[in-house]
């Protein structure tokens, strides 16, 4: 990277961050609404219905309620860690959006190590969950945090292996270059060459973002609300937003790596990218309302006994083929 940082490039990144913050906020509302509607339709209910036509303002009403609520810190909770956790959960996620190429012209910060940046900053989420669980002086919070750490650390490895297989194949860590290496037609996407890596990536992404069926850190039936048991108002709101933002990032990276990014059969552009991302997000919701939550030993078994060996084999095979 350049040693000199021009005013223009800084301005560009700052503007991109503001844009990303808006994008995340609006998508948080949209996805909460979509999630509840999907849940409703799968259970033959209408879902949110009363606030606004077809209930489209329900998420806004909920957000306003969350903002208006009192922030409560439990007695004897660590004030610094307790308040740092939601901040630490939410703000690093904004950075993750910077290197993602929405379209050739719409990229926050086109760095050649974009993939590495995303993987590195995604690690902050675990720390935030740990701080939240530890700092709130609550047994459910602590149990949720312990689960979050064990789960995220475990699922990061197959995720990385799947990402590495693509990086080996394309010979780059730049997300724009990876999109550039793929064609517009579905059979020219990386998923056609690396279906196993796609599967491993998607399952690991579910584990990384604590989505059902791997939502053990906040398992309602066992741990009240897991790591965010003690959070009210926007403390909880930040975790909630961060969770949805993480989902968007995971699906965006998946789109870039495996589904050809902003390329499509015709009229390349950001709409293809967004369509694929929302398709993956809907699949995640579909999974959530289909599969029951796994047990913790099942979760770790799946990771260490299936995803990890498969990921290693896939990576070795990729390296072997690339060497030929």
């Amino acid at each position, binding site marked *: 990277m350049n040693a000199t940082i021009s005013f223009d490039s800084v301005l560009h990144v700052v503007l991109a961050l503001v844009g990303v913050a808006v994008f995340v906020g609006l998508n948080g509302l949209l996805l909460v609404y979509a999630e509840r509607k*999907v849940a409703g339709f*799968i259970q*033959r*209910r*209408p879902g949110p*219905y009363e606030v606004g036509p077809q209930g489209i303002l329900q998420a806004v009403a909920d957000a306003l309620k969350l903002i208006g609520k009192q922030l409560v810190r439990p007695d004897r909770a660590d004030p610094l860690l307790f308040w740092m956790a939601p901040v630490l959960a939410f703000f690093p996620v904004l950075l993750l959006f910077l290197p993602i190429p929405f379209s050739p012209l719409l990229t926050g910060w086109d760095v050649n190590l974009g993939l590495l940046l995303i993987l590195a900053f995604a690690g902050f989420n675990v720390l935030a969950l740990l701080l939240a669980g530890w700092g709130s002086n609550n047994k459910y919070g602590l149990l949720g945090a312990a689960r979050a750490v064990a789960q995220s650390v475990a699922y990061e490895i197959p995720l990385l292996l799947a990402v590495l297989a693509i990086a080996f194949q394309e010979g780059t860590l730049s997300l724009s270059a990876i999109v550039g290496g793929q064609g517009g037609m579905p059979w020219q996407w990386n998923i056609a060459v690396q279906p196993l890596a796609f599967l491993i990536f998607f399952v690991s992404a579910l584990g990384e973002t604590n989505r059902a069926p791997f939502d053990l850190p906040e398992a309602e039936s066992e741990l009240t609300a897991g790591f965010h048991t003690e959070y009210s108002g926007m403390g909880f709101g930040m975790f909630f937003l961060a969770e949805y933002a993480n989902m968007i990032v995971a699906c965006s990276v998946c789109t870039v790596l495996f589904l050809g990014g902003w390329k499509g059969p015709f009229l390349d552009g950001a709409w293809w990218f967004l369509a694929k991302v929302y398709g993956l997000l809907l699949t995640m919701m*579909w*999974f959530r309302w*289909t*599969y029951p939550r796994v047990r913790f030993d099942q979760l770790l078994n799946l990771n260490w006994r299936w995803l990890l060996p498969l990921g290693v084999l896939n990576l070795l095979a990729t390296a072997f083929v690339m060497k030929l």
Partner: protein
Amino acid sequence: MASIFRTLADLWSLVVGLGITGKEFCKPGVTVHYPRAEVTPEAAASFRGPIELIGLDKDPAKPKCIACMLCVSACPSNCIAVTRAPTPKPTPEELKAMAEAEARGEKPKKPAPPKAPGTWTYDFSLCSLCGSCVEVCPVDSIGFSHDIYMVGTRREDFVFDQLARLARKAAARKAEPKKAAPEAASAPAPAPETAATPASEA
């Protein structure tokens, strides 16, 4: 090795599950948007209202109940109170027969109490609608009503004299049999007895 293949084969069940939820997603919802939409008799038929007595086929004003008290002991909330109908006073002929039997040194044949309830009160304010009484009744004399519009302002409004209620319903059905008959026929209730008591006559 075999277990690995079996696990892989079992993965198919995940796809089956997605297929089921996907299909349900595409079907129309079943929620009735009351009060914007009217509750159809079909929707009301699945509603568990306060329990009610079911009349005899021949005489709908009389319950099938044999006053066995099983429902009283099965009820976890003690909301059912049943008493047996009093034993009828022996007629002069019977008294004579009893005296004769006693004179012969035999055991006199006393009239047995009738197998019917004398009073049948039900406190809906205590009922949790668990259905234990419906399940336990040996003669299927108890069923859930489908009265979805019941309201009251006093606690006493929810203590029902079920015998009187049954008689009232039977009389109301007799008064307008033409209107009640198609409505009862259209309601697909599990038991024909419950279908014969539409909600509109509550």
